[in-house]
Structure formats: C-alpha cells, structure tokens
C-alpha cells in the first residue's frame, strides 16, 4: 500500500468520525487507529474533543477492567463508532470473519469473528473497511455471517454498519433498505471499474442515473493540514502500537 493511497484511506475513514464523541479501534487495526487519531487531532484543532480508544496501545487505551471493558463500554452506549473489516462482505452489509466454504467444513479459514457479532449490534456507527476491493471479498452472499448487516424488526439493535471504505471507493450503508450506496470514487476509479470488481449490487446517490458516472463525487484527497498531521503527529502516535505502519504514515 503506497503512502498516498494509505493517506487517502486514513482520511476517508477519519471523515466518517466527524462530530462524534468517542471512537474505539480494535486490536491489529493500524489503518483505523491512524484514522481515529487523525479525527481526534482534527477535532482538537477546532476545539472539539474525540475520545479515542486504541486497543493494543498503552498510551491511547484508558481501560482498567480487562478485556471485557470495550464490550461493556459499547453496551453502555459510550462508544459512537467502531471499525470492522471482513474476509467477505456482502451487499446486505453482512460480514464474514470465519471462513469460506460450507461451515463447519471450510475450504479457507479466517481468524474468527472477534467481537463483530456483538459490536455490530451495539455501536451506532460501525465503519466497514477493506483495502482489497475485489469479487473475492465483496461477494453476493457471505459464506458465514459473523455479523449481519441488518436485523429483523424487534431485535435490539441500536447500532449497525454505516459505511464501507475500500481501496476503490466509499459506500454508505442504507440501514432501512439493507443495501450500500456508492458515495465516492477514489481517484482513478469509475462506476464501471467499481461494478466490475464488486460481487454485489449497490445503489447510486440520489439523483444519479444508472448510466452516468461523471456526477459521482471523488473521494476527497487529504488536505495539506491532514498530511501535515499524519506526518508530524499521527505517525508518532501510532508508532507505539504499529511501528511498521507508522513508517508508512511518516512518508505521506
């Protein structure tokens, strides 16, 4: 992942944290960690405050009640946003972190569901992300539902997916319809290139015809201020937890 592409993804993820009070980032999640810390730095610059909890960090993790505290904290309604990736993600917002094949007879095993089967229900804004944007990842229907995109009426579910950011574009998740809407194309991508590499159908922004691509916004590039923050501040902040990723950030 080149530095410029990294910066674009980090800022695209950070854009989805505007106006929030508290974001948590799970373990082994360098991209979201950088995004959360960038969003915090941006908030501070305008006198706001974004509490940023980065699991695996010593500096940015205030928890003192053990491994359960993130989950309890989410259930208490104290966490506004969380990031989830997926081995497979489908057009209904379902995420698969367990494997491909006919469970339990899997052909390929992923690490496991982590907290997704819980946090995707309880955190108001669950931001899905996956650098690889291909028909291998973005499938018509996931082989195993670690976390469903939507739930039947009557299911206790204050939270759920709100967005999906990939290496090619950004989607918003339409919870009522249980479908993604393409919201922006990264530089160099077209509606056609996204369709070609996406295994599921998705909506276009209101007012967009199905044919045209000209009017679909381009994902905002990092501002000069963002790049400065990433290089001069965020690289240092993530270095404690993700030293190799920090080097990439320092080079944007």
């Amino acid at each position: 992942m080149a530095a410029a592409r990294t910066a674009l993804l980090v800022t695209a993820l950070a854009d989805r944290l505007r106006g929030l009070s508290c974001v948590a980032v799970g373990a082994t999640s360098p991209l979201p960690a950088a995004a959360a810390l960038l969003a915090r730095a941006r908030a501070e610059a305008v006198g706001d405050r974004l509490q940023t909890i980065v699991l695996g960090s010593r500096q940015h993790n205030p928890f003192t009640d053990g491994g359960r505290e993130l989950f309890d904290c989410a259930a208490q309604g104290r966490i506004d946003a969380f990031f989830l990736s997926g081995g497979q993600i489908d057009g209904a917002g379902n995420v698969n972190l367990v494997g491909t094949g006919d469970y339990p007879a899997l052909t390929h095993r992923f690490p496991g569901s982590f907290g997704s089967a819980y946090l995707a229900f309880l955190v108001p804004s669950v931001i899905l992300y996956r650098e690889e944007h291909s028909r291998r990842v973005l499938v018509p229907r996931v082989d195993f539902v670690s976390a469903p995109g939507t739930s039947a009426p009557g299911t206790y579910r204050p939270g759920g997916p709100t967005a999906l950011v990939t290496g090619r574009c950004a989607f918003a998740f339409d919870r009522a319809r249980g479908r993604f809407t393409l919201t922006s194309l990264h530089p160099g991508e077209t509606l056609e290139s996204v369709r070609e590499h996406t295994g599921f159908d998705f909506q276009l922004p209101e007012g967009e015809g199905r044919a045209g691509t000209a009017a679909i916004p381009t994902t905002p590039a990092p501002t000069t201020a963002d790049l400065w923050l990433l290089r001069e501040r965020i690289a240092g902040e993530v270095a404690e937890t993700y030293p190799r990723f920090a080097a990439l950030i320092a080079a944007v």
Partner: protein
Amino acid sequence: MTVPALTVAELVALIAPGSLVAVPPDYSGPSLAATRALIAAGTTGLRLLAVPTSGMQADLLIGAGVVDEVEAAAVLLGEHGGAPRFTAAVVAGAIRMRDTTCPAVHAALQAAEKGLPFIPLRGLIGSDVLRFRPDWQVIDNPFAVGGGAAAGAASADPIVLLPAIRPDVALFHAPRADRDGNVWIGRRRELVTMAHAASATLVTVEEIVDGSLLADEATAAGVLPALYVTAVAVAPGGAWPLGLPGHSEPDNAEQARYARAARSDDGFRAYLAELLADAAGAADAAGAADAGR
C-alpha cells in the same frame, strides 16, 4: 509458601487429559513456558478456551496435537497474520472448533465467576455464530416493556442466553508472585475473571518476591489473591516470544520466524524440535537454580 512453587513440568502435570484450559490473549500473558512443557510432556486431548482470542500458544498446541477442541473468538498471530497450524487443522477437520465472539467468552466466564448457570448477552441474533452454537439459547426478554408484539415487531425482544463456562484450569504467565501465592496481574483483569471461574489456576511467573503483594494499597488493586491460585512455577521469560504487559516487549522477529516456519507441517516440526530442545536446556538451568530455593 502457601501455594506450592513447582517446576514448570510439575505445574503442567497437574493438567489432566481432557481438561478445559482457559488461556489469555497474546497481549495478556499467555504462558509459553507451560505451552512448551505441555508439548514436551506429550499431553493430549485438551480443550482450549481462548479468553477471548489466542495466537502462537494455540497454534503451537494445535500443531503439536495437544488440543482436540478450541473455543475462541479468533486465533491469529497478531500482526504476523493467520495462525497456520490452526487454519490447517480446521480445514483438515483435525480439531473441533467452537466459534464464539469476544464478549460471549467474557460473559460466560463471569457467569461461572458468579455461580450463575447462564447469562444473557445482546447482539448475536441472526448471526451464524449463534446458529452453530446449539448450547446457546434464545428466549424472549421477560423484562421487555410491552413486548415486541405491542411495538408491532415480529417477536418480543429475543435475547441470547449463554451457559456459564467453568474451565478446569486457568493457565497464564505473570510478572511476579509473592511467597503467599498472590500474583500481580495489573490491569489484565481478564486473568482475574479466568481464575475466579476456573477450578484450578496455574501460573508461571518471572520471579517470586519477598513481602506480600497485598501489603501496599497502591498496588494491591492489581493482584490476584492466593485464594484462587493452585500452584506457581518460576519461568523467567515465560511469555517469550510474546510480550508481557509491564515487563517485556514482544520478540517480533521470533514471531515472524515462527509464522514463516509454521506454514508447512515440516517447517512446524522443525521449529518445534528446536523450541523443545531450547526449553529442555532452559529447564535444566532452571532446575539447577531451583535446587537452591
């Protein structure tokens, strides 16, 4: 010492075949020393409970054939990617995998800690994690206001009930114990819950210190009392190549070496042979040091 101080080999000999063994995640002090000793002892048939995830420890135990069954929210080698022996064993059907989610492990251990037969948990409804757990139940929340029907919903607030998990053994590594058997765990309170929930708690430590860890109120908050500790063994560097919070950093180069080696069964066997030879040497050295205790 109130709690027996054993060698690591003696410690793992207390783990009966078939035991359900709870282990902490990579960031919370798994006992790699006990892991090596279990493999060296030829223990088999263990059921492993990751609290709530595991990494190199699970991969070693699975690759070496110590483990029949794994319950975990995830198994992976952290930044070093998937856990190769775990992945291979699942695809081969060599182990029974009980997929779960992190908060379910924590909650089910808290149920055991509180002597509850079950505990409810939000989320999960509609997931395949739930669908493939016949031991979990779904009921209508008896405290739902008005019920789902009144709200025009299809059902009356379904909620999952998890049975308590009571491990036979909680096994971990910690920076220090005192001579009473109190163990310093700091902020790693999942270790407290594990120990409370488990029938026996076996701990390897960097060192045994003089004086009670409970004596100073400033640090007592980070102590697991001896009441819950079955036995302790001194194993300096016992978390290596993982890190130990408040004590040592992870050895990333060694973990990367393992991740590469374990991609193939042959590579894993070679790595393991080397590891056990080193461990045997270390055990001899520790035994010699122990003779002076």
